[in-house]
């Protein structure tokens, strides 16, 4: 099995080394893998990844977001029919967000949300055939960072891969940029990123730097960030 991990796979390939049921061991199939009878087939082109104890998934280049439970996403409010909001999260269907699922919201005290606002929310329900449902509170009723983003800044769209990369705590771009600039960032796993820096120029620079970093290696990212801070502040680090 080990020899396949980290290798390129194509749709239709059969992985006969992963058995659906191993002895007293569960195998979890992530995105890109489907169970077909006794075989496991691949439905996406990409790199096969594995994590202990038994999680397999395909890492591939993708733009389309498929809602999954517990994902933190950035959505755009598109409709306000009755007591829910309809939110575009980039999936095939609009997600619903109840106005009661904001911190401190009651029947009388409705949250102030307008059409076109952006919200940082978590997916509570995400099934194949059901409307996804969002919440802006955790299980204790606290906002814990979620809610409407209403501080200006800029929202841009990127590939799902890049969003995942940014959410990695070891993310080089954000670390490098963070050493040089002051900014706020919210990354939704659905490929939407909100950034806000000191001024508009820096916000644009930040957004472009993040976008450009997708196809760069760590050394290149570092050089880019150095150049960027040199251009914007006029201070040469070396």
């Amino acid at each position, binding site marked *: 099995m080990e*020899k*396949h991990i*980290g*290798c*390129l*796979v*194509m749709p239709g*390939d*059969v*992985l*006969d080394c992963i058995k659906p049921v191993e002895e007293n061991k569960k195998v979890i199939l992530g995105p890109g893998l489907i169970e077909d009878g006794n075989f496991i087939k691949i439905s996406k082109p990409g*790199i096969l990844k594995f994590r202990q104890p038994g999680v397999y998934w395909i890492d591939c280049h993708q733009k389309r977001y498929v809602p999954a439970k517990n994902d933190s996403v950035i959505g*755009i409010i*598109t409709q306000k029919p009755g007591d829910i909001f309809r939110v*575009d999260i*980039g999936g095939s269907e*609009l997600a619903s967000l109840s106005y009661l699922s904001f911190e401190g919201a009651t029947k009388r005290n409705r949250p102030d949300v*307008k059409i*076109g*606002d*952006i919200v940082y929310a978590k997916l509570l329900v995400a099934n194949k055939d059901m409307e996804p449902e969002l919440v802006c509170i955790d299980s204790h009723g606290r906002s814990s960072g979620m809610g409407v*983003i209403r501080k*200006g*800044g*800029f*929202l*841009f*769209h990127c590939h799902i891969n890049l969003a995942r990369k940014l959410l990695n705590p070891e993310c080089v771009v954000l670390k490098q940029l963070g050493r040089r600039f002051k900014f706020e960032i919210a990354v939704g796993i659905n490929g939407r990123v*909100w950034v806000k820096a000191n001024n*508009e*120029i820096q*916000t*644009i*620079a930040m*957004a*472009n*730097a993040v976008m*450009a970093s997708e*196809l*760069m*290696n760590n050394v*290149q990212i570092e050089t*880019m960030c150095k*150049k*960027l801070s040199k*251009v*914007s502040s006029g201070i040469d680090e070396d």
Partner: protein
Amino acid sequence: MRETPLSNCEKEFILKNISEQRRLDGRNSYDYRDLRIAFGVSLGCCHVELGKTRVLAQVSCEVGQPKQTRPHDGVLYVNVELSPMACPSFEAGRQTEEGVELSRLMERCLKESRCMDLESLCIVAGEKAWHIRIDIHVLNHEGNILDCSSIAAIAALAHFRRPDVTVQGQEITIHSMEDRNPVPLSIHHIPLLVSFAFFIQGKYMIVDPSEKEEKVMEGKMVIGMNKHREICTLQVTGEMLLLKEQVLRCSNIAVMKVTKITELIHTALANDKQARLRGEKHGFAELISGEKLSSNQQPPIEVKPAFNIYEEDDDSMSSMESDESSLGHKVQEVDIKRYL
């Protein structure tokens, strides 16, 4: 499929920046994005990239009856195809308002400007004439498909060659390409469309709006012009009023842009012609190997060669492996100055 809605945050940010004479991609208000013109192996096939917007135009011809009202003229059809490939919100087969506007403007630009001599397409008056058809396929929509399609269309027409025809009494002979050199269409001038987007009651104006800017803009003015400063089309859409001075300023900017693009088309045509004459490799396939056409340039990614599922036919797979290990492309060059 639904279009991704534009959030208030993006809208405010873009408007704020435009009011401070800044654009998201680092361009100035009157700058075009990078323009690339490429020709295919077949005659009359042109691929134009304007930033990330891509359009492919293909010209074809057939012999048919001329129109009853114009028995001495050939016929020019213009067809614009907006497929879901360009933008998921475009639907195949259904004409949207945007699609109608686009094809109508293209018709006005190409047909009603009389840039092409239709009389030379006549074979036998009232009976036989060439029907020239130009299909414009929008491959990717990243804003300003209009300008991009107009460049692609006219470049494709200029690149096209129709088979030669001789008429002897009642007998019409269409010579094959090998038999006689194909004839170029007679094109009098090169009309091009230049779009201007207006913001905040027409106070701010930009050239070549990107997709997001198009969503924010209040109105648009399209000027069709050739390098002789002749206006072929002028269209204003949206909810705004324009001053006479603004229209004049736009037309002055359009002159500069049109002259530049016309030059570019001529150089692209000349390059292609020379490559063909010298028997060098030409066409899209060559451009990809020269890394001119691929916008998805990637740095080399460390990917182990494909693993063998079918262990038996080892030999056929090993040849594929070597191909796949060279997945990496040229490193994308990023101009830092553009950020600011």
